[in-house]
């Protein structure tokens, strides 16, 4: 196994080159640090670039501050130092060009599926019939057609996260931020989700920032992985898995490139356990 091959910097997917534009990152994180009120230093001078139209994963041991970083990018928590640029503009709070998918789904239990999906549009003042039409389209897109008038407690965990995903897609944000979105669903659903996510990245033309603690999941879905160290967190490596993703999604899990990258990351991470 050759880790350096896995860490080459050429993206592998056959996306058309962006015409007339340098491959500019859609999200830039510049020496972000975060110290919590109790003096706990979560992030220490993290700098990262997130390429447009790709899926970039923040991967690291539990409690390493990857969710903190994601929420700083989302504008939900202020950073102690440094800045985040989205599409060239500095982040000062949440914005319409970013949408968030929550680990615990964060659905309104008193609202139907369609109202949950349309919630972002409702907050923006989009007219009722228009936002319901948009929501219906995205509900169908995530495979929940027919469940529009159901309530979250009538759905399984996997279906609830589909609602959370549809809600994030409905606001048509350029950047979708996903905080361990599949960690609360069962393994079969999780694999199905991972396959669908690849399809989404390939077809939606959006940029995805994904947080997970699962090495396999990260390698399976990511174009680029930022490996974070233990607290106070730094970027310990940038890895771009060279995996051929066309064709059978099941094949990837047996692909030798896939297995090699998983192994390489495991070797890097295992010393954090000692």
């Amino acid at each position, binding site marked *: 196994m050759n880790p350096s091959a896995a860490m080459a910097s050429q993206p592998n997917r056959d996306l058309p080159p962006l015409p007339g534009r340098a491959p500019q990152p859609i999200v830039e994180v510049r020496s972000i640090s975060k110290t919590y009120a109790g003096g706990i230093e979560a992030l220490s001078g993290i700098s990262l670039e997130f390429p447009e139209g790709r899926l970039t994963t923040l991967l690291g041991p539990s409690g390493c501050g990857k969710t903190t970083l994601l929420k700083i990018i989302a504008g939900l928590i202020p950073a102690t130092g440094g800045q985040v640029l989205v599409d060239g503009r500095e982040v000062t709070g949440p914005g319409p060009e970013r949408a968030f998918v929550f680990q615990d789904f964060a659905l*309104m239990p008193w609202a139907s599926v369609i109202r949950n999906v349309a919630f972002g549009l409702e907050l923006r003042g989009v007219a009722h019939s228009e936002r319901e039409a948009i929501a219906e389209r995205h509900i169908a897109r995530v495979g929940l057609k027919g469940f529009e008038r159901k309530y979250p407690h009538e759905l399984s965990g996997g279906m609830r996260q589909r609602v959370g995903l549809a809600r994030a897609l409905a*606001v048509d944000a350029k950047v979708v931020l996903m905080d361990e979105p599949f960690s609360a669903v069962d393994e079969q659903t999780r694999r199905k989700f991972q396959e669908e996510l690849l399809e989404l990245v390939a077809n939606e033309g959006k940029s995805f920032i994904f947080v997970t603690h699962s090495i396999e999941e990260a390698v399976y879905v990511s174009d680029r992985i930022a490996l974070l160290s233990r607290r106070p967190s730094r970027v310990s490596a940038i890895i771009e898995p060279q995996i051929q993703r066309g064709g059978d999604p099941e094949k990837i899990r047996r692909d030798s490139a896939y297995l090699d990258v998983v192994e390489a990351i495991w070797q890097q991470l295992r010393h954090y356990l000692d």
Partner: protein
Amino acid sequence: MVISGIRLPMMAALLVWAVVWEIAGHTDAGFILPPLSRIIWRVFEIVPTASFLDALLITGRAFLLGNTIAIAVGVPLGILMGRSVIADRLLLPWVNLFLSAPLSALVPVIMVLFGLGETTIVLTVVLFSMWIIVLNTRAGIRAISPSLVEMARSFGSNRWQAFSRIYLWAALPEILAGIRLGVVRAVKGVVIGQLLVSVVGFGTLFEIYQSHFLMEHFWALLLVLFAFAFTLNELLARLERRFGYYAAAR
């Protein structure tokens, strides 16, 4: 309840006690506790009288006004306490104090300050019903999942939207339970207030019936009030169940 294979309706227990009451009314105790049948007869006799309807109007108005104030002040106060640590620290001891204090003892104080009129009765109602509404609303607000609040923020909600679309709904089951408990306490409040002032509404009637030893009238009036409190509680409980579908799923 099932006894020897026969399913008894919920009201069966009430029927048993009604029979016990009727029998007791025909013994020597009938002097103070007349038979139920005669009391019920009296209910139909006194309800259409002008003095009863007059008392009902005055009482109903004080009751409604007092509850409206208790809800209008109690819910925002509870939300404030649930959201702000400083407000909570400042106010929680008082709310707990008033919730457990023997409030009847305070009514004479209100009487001295606001006279023997409607104001005193309304304030007594507020005093009885508001604190449990505050406390329940506070609990509902504190139990809101932080990720739901983050969700609203991340999709661009302003403060008013977060309040009206998330906080209020998330805490609604607790708020409604608080209002139900508050309204039941308010029935106590309005009657105790009127009894202590004794020249207003049902207070006057109770006073007349007792001083003339009209026990049947006295019990009839009491029966009407009990039925009123019971019905109100049931109606509000039904409203609560309407919104309860998501209470357990939050």
